[in-house]
């Protein structure tokens, strides 16, 4: 506030016999805000067909034990089929790690990532280069936020997602 205006305010206050502090609208919170949308690209029709027809490729989820990151042997064939598909079509794949809702959002993001890295390491062992694989974590963000007990088991998993499918 300019001094002259302040003085004027004080003078006018004098006339009415009382000083007053003006409480004003705080901060510029009337700014427009962005509405967000997602983006997509496309896989080739041949690759799409194979993804839909091969039963090993329709399996996309690897489940983990409580606070665990190691991949159980039951997923060996499934991961081998995905590795073959990735090199055959030279496609990019994202491994989405997930965690159940318990604990902080950020720490769960790191836990999901650790599971994602586990799957990526397994694919790497099957000859898939790092350029084809992105490890991403969704943490607890798509998990059941209201589960209790074993209902939360399904959220401790990594999903194989092809870019552009």
């Amino acid at each position: 506030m300019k001094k002259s205006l302040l003085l004027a305010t004080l003078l006018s206050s004098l006339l009415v016999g009382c000083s007053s502090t003006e409480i004003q609208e705080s901060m510029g919170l009337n700014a427009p805000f962005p509405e967000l949308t997602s983006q997509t690209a496309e896989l080739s029709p041949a690759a799409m067909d194979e993804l839909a027809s091969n039963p090993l490729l329709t399996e996309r989820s690897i489940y983990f034990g409580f606070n665990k990151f190691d991949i159980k042997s039951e997923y060996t064939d499934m991961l081998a089929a995905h590795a073959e598909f990735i090199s055959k079509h030279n496609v990019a794949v994202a491994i989405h790690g997930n965690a159940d809702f318990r604990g902080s959002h950020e720490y769960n993001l790191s836990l999901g990532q650790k599971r994602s890295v586990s799957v990526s390491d397994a694919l790497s062992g099957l000859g898939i280069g790092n350029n084809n694989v992105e490890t991403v974590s969704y943490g607890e963000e798509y998990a059941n936020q209201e589960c209790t007990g074993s209902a939360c088991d399904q959220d401790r998993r990594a999903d194989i997602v092809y870019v552009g499918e």
Partner: protein
Amino acid sequence: MIFNMKIMQNYIYRFIFLVTLIILSFPSNSIEVIEILGGKASQIPIAITPFNEDLKNDDLGKMHKVIANDLERSGLFSALDTSGISNIPDSDMYINFSNWSALQAQFLIVGKSTTIRDRLTTRWSLIDIYKEKTVLSMEFSGSKKQYRAIAHKISDLVYEKLTGSPGVFHTRIIFVKKKSDKNYGLYVSDYDGFNQRAVVNSSQPIISPRWSPDGKKIAYVSFEKKKPVIYVQDLTTGKRVLVANFKGNNSAPAWSPDSKKLAIVLTYSANSQIYIINSDGSGIKQLMRTRSINTEPAWSPDGKEIFFSSDRGGNPQIYKVNVDGVSEVNRVTFEGKGNLSPSLSPDGKLLLFLTQENGKFRVAVQNLTSNQVLKLTKGPHDESPIFSPNGHMILFTYKDYGKKTKIGTVSVNGLKVTPIRVGSETIQESSWGPITN
């Protein structure tokens, strides 16, 4: 919030002194010495009488109730029930001190609000019952929309006068609302949940909102690109900058005390690691590298250290490291099955975090000198703890088994847990904005 409040206050004090000859015994920056007399020794008993108001607005709550809720939320005051009192004074002119003393009130707030068209003017006084004198006597005015802002400002001044610390009742919070699986909103509101306004809407999750210490910007993590990326958004213009969209995850933004940098967490193709980046997205630098998880960075108020959570010892625990150069990493927490989500009190003396024990997550503080730990909440699923800018309260989210997440405050002395009502939707993450003038 208010232009040149300090200067204005000084003018007001001089003005009142000269013109109306009400002598204020205390200059604006002095602290009222409180003599605690027995009983509930840790809380100041204060009577806040209904103001003499000509404005009927039930939506906004009565002014004396806004003030009482503010002061009680801090855990340092107990507001006395004045409903049985007849002949409520609306100024400090005719106070029957023995009556208020009999009610065990140590302080009394009285006031009168008048409206002329859109303008609201509130004249109020804080009175010391034991010393039988007026401590503060002021007048605030503004548009009718500023009704609650005026009440919060009164609370702030009373709080500062009686505790010696600035009040935070005019500050704002930011939180994420999950309205449905495909509808998330980042909201700014008054600290008590009133005056909500969306600043981001998205079909994908938003986490980790953090208000810059200078109050101008917010950083947050959005999943709109089908993976977590970090945006910094200007609250005045609404413009935003994608500051981190590196391969893998981009998350956990933490503002440096000077608002110029962010500590962030990136993964590339491996586990979460901490980096420092300028708030415009330039000058990325890795803080340290290990094979284990390092995440949830938090700056010490002097900007010299970063506290973080890590599973390098098995379960998550909190560690600290110097910001400049490679230095020794020191473990800070030792109790419980796990400790995570660290942040520091404004004076740097207390570590605030979540402690995990028997499957429950609770809010706890650790004195960094004595290493004594105080658990402030009971769980089972408390999260997202952050100090108020004066360090006297903590904002956090909580939920019971199988229920939706809600938001509330707990006083740092652990005496007062108060919900913040922002609607029936799930609240996922929250943060507290700085003190603004």
